[in-house]
């Protein structure tokens, strides 16, 4: 089982991509689960979301405590909390940033310039680029994650831009 924890501020689209990763897992034939964890619901407040992907039916309903992949959509959050808390032995933290913040020294972490990549593809939100990176880290085929994203977001966002941005995020882990 791959367990993913997403850190973001409410409004950055973490819930959406946590679900898209699950959708892609489902397309790839896995058992999946995606759920958000809110405090008081307000834009800008720190929130978490979780995705589980497994070969076996997922039955548990507790939050992800020992993630294999941590995705940080908002780099300033690393100064407010330990985003690497409970990270599994071979786990990795992926941060939407050009340069890893000092707070992550000693943690197996990777900077993904997702905001820049998103802008290059004409997209306002970098969450889909981080989704591509998460999919690569989770071993989800690129086509599944692109299809899942286009199916859900294709009406609002240009399909080619989406596919391109996701592919570039995916390639960051190649």
């Amino acid at each position, binding site marked *: 089982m791959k367990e993913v924890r997403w850190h973001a501020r409410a409004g950055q689209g973490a819930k959406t991509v946590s679900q898209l990763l699950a959708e892609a897992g*489902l397309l790839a034939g896995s058992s*999946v689960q*995606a759920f958000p964890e809110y405090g*008081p619901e307000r834009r800008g407040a720190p929130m978490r979301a979780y995705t589980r992907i497994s070969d076996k039916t*997922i*039955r*548990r*309903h507790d*939050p992800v405590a020992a993630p294999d992949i941590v995705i940080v959509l908002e780099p300033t959050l690393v100064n407010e909390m330990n985003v690497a808390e409970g990270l599994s032995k071979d786990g990795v933290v992926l941060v939407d940033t050009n340069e890893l913040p000092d707070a992550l020294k000693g943690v197996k972490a990777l900077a993904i310039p997702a905001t820049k990549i998103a802008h290059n593809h004409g997209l306002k939100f970098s969450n889909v680029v981080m989704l591509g990176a998460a999919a690569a880290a989770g071993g989800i085929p690129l086509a599944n994650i692109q299809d899942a994203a286009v199916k859900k977001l294709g009406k609002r966002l240009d399909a080619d831009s989406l596919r391109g941005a996701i592919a570039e995020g995916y390639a960051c882990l190649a």
Partner: protein
Amino acid sequence: MPVKTQEGAQLLTGGDAVANAMAQIDPDVFPVYPITPQTPIIQTFAKLVANGKASTEIVNVESEHSAMSATIGSALAGARSMTATSSQGLALMAEVVYIAAGMRAPIVMAVGNRALSAPLNIHCDHSDSMMIRDSGVIQLFAESVQEAYDLMVMAPRIAEHPDVMLPVLVCQDGFTLTHSEEPLELTPDEVVKDFVGEYHVPLPLLDVENVTTKGIFALQDYYTELRYAMNAAMEKAVPVIEEVFGEYSKIVDRPFGILEEYEIEGAERVIFLMGSTAGTIKDVVDELRAKGEKVGLLRLVSYRPFPAEQIRKALAGATEVIVLDRSDAPGSVPSLHSEMAAALYGSSAKLRAHVFGLGGRELVPDEARAIFAGEAPTHIALRS
């Protein structure tokens, strides 16, 4: 014969799942007032109605008290009627929930279980359902998104059965299920339609040929008898639920029961609880079983009617029963604990009980291990 599902499994939240079931049932009237974490249910349902998937009259009322009042009125007038709520909404509705049951209105209500104030909390526990435990409504608790959907499809048949005629609440854990996406197999529309059938209440209010009075006055003369009749209906509800579960199970090829026995065979220590946490416990049961520990799980689906006899039978081989209540009862012990004690009266099994999961503090596998090992505190995860 099992039918093929529409397009295979799709990802839906518990809220969306139940809203889809409602749209397939296509009730006549749906008076409702929003509250977290139930709001996604009415949002999705309203969207489905607006898109023409259902022809329900949605009545936006000014409170949950009014929502249930309007639901009773339309149900007794002869229209299939549903509503939905959570937490404080159910608290405000409570007065009228007793009336719905007492007037034998076969209403179906979707509940996203949530803690009660104070302090203010939007996350799951079962305190709201417990508050109306003696109201005379049937309460069924789901473990997963799929089960929440399936119970919703089956609920009208139970509520409207002539031997029952009581409201049915389909309860799912707030956020943990209402906002969680899990793979769901939708039952095809026409299969749901056939399964649910036409709505029928004896002597509807709008039957002007046979004029009847609803909401009668009953004093020392008949009050006792009319309240007692609800006991009889609850007793009959047990076989009715089993019959409806059995019939639907054959259609969708998934098992349903008023209880779920998981690794009960040969189990010495058995956890007893309701809701989504059962899934987490199952994983721990598998792990401990692999180590040779004789542990099991008994999950309660039908909280009301409480199937005491079946529970006693299922636990006949257990030496220790561990009850987990997702609600507290200051000054006494919570509902499942006391009712299990009554069910086991005279049995040699040891009874242990814990309170867990208040205000959304989910039970984690380590805590489940400690519970089985007898090393957990009375209130799980309580910080000093």
